[in-house]
């Protein structure tokens, strides 16, 4: 479904953030990327969703070359990105944020229906639907960001550290939701610090270090690697 072929990404002239990265996500999979801070996980997601333009290499989605296409057009192709740090529209209400998630969809009835499912999944959002979303707590904002992405009816969902700053009970819930979304047919590429949880739901995994992929394989293979155990699984 998604194929990344040897991309290189720079910030400015000197910072070489991604070095010859190649990876693949197949239809229906949950793929996770783990790696220390600054390894380049966010940069990969941004390259896919068009917020960053690779200097070389190609990205193909459903056998279409999408390298260098602006972000707004990539959304149209069915890729939704839940960015790091949530990035909700802080001065808009929860409701308005969700509406914007379906910006490109002009079928009002369908949007309404999806809104209902999102509220069922996140009852807390329903309670606060008219609150200015900038004043939500961190966890509430994360739910909103996920909900907003779901409003876009994605075929490929990119999640950047969805569990960051969440309560344990919510972390679990978020991962359950990811699994559910996946079960309903959405392919997911998720970046996580919480390697334990991520590996427990993923089919396959990639491990990143300083801009390079150092390990890849099925989730179980990766989880049983000694290095990974030590660095990311707490022993």
């Amino acid at each position, binding site marked *: 479904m998604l194929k990344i072929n040897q991309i290189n990404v720079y910030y400015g002239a000197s910072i070489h953030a991604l070095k010859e990265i190649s990876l693949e996500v197949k239809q229906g999979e949950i793929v996770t990327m783990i790696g220390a801070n600054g390894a380049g996980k966010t940069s990969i997601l941004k390259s896919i969703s068009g*917020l960053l333009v690779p200097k070389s290499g190609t990205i193909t989605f459903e056998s279409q070359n999408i390298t260098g296409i602006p*972000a707004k057009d990539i959304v149209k192709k069915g890729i939704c990105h839940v960015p790091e740090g949530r990035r909700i529209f802080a001065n808009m209400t929860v409701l308005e944020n969700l509406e914007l998630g379906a910006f490109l969809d002009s079928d009002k009835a369908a949007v309404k229906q999806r809104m209902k499912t999102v509220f069922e999944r996140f009852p807390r959002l329903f309670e606060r639907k008219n609150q200015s979303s900038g004043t939500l707590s961190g966890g509430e904002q994360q739910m909103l960001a996920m909900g907003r992405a779901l409003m876009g009816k994605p075929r490929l969902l990119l999640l950047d550290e969805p569990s960051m700053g969440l309560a344990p009970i919510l972390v679990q819930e978020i991962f359950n939701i990811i699994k559910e979304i996946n079960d309903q047919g959405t392919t997911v590429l998720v970046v996580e610090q919480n390697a334990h949880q991520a590996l427990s739901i993923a089919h396959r995994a990639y491990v990143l270090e300083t801009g390079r992929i150092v390990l890849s394989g099925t989730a179980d293979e990766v989880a049983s690697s000694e290095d990974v155990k030590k660095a990311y699984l707490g022993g």
Partner: protein
Amino acid sequence: MEIFIQQLINGIALGSIYALIALGYTMVYGIIKLINFAHGDIYMVGAFVAFFMISIFDMPFSIALLVAMAACALLGMIIERVAYKPLRNQDRLTALITAIGVSFFLEYTMIYLVKPDPRAFPASFQLHNFHIGNIVISSKDLIIFAISLGLMLLLTYVVNRTKTGKSMRAVSYDSEAAQLMGIDVNKTISATFALGSALAAAAGVLVGMYYGQIEPLMGIMPGLKAFIAAVIGGIGIIPGAAFGGLILGVTESLVSGAGYSMLRDAVAFIILIIILIVKPTGLMGKNVKEKV
């Protein structure tokens, strides 16, 4: 009492003009957080476009108004593309200085092209005066008020109800996240400039019609006043700008009416400062505490 009402009417007409300019200020500010100091000069260019349309091509007033609005919409978009877009990710002061540069550029290019002398704006209406007791309301007062009100309502509709309006608001909060929703940021910002500039042009043409005189530096003071109006109402908030414009127009009129016209500009600023001290985000600004 009659005098008071007369001054009130004068003030509302003046305030409508401030409001129209202030709306453009507020919209541009809302979306890219730029105090577009060139905005007052777009108002001036609008007045000149209509002037030439009427005096050279003999256009009727309403057509000239539309042409001026269209021309300035285009001008606003070009200015944004050339001078502001490259600086979007820079410190906001950088763009502010560029805006000052653009403002000088428009003023002095116009002086160079059309000379600094004031010009008489062709009279476009048969004037009617309506007398109510000793109070005089001219048809111009009514026209200016009606057109301003109409444009403001239209703008409110566009911003709150249309997709363009929603994307404007989204871009104004987080343009990167807006892109992830499929919103075309460049187009949205262009549209904002176009809309704001068209409103400024309308104000310029109305002023030309109302006072009968235009000149290349006519935008400086109203531009500054409109900015004050926008801040009084709460900058970035559309009804706030309209409200601020009216308050400012009426106050100025009353101050002059009370015989202190030489202190009028000072009073305008004193009011501004008092309002800011009492309510630091303007009258309609939400007093949100920064979440930490």
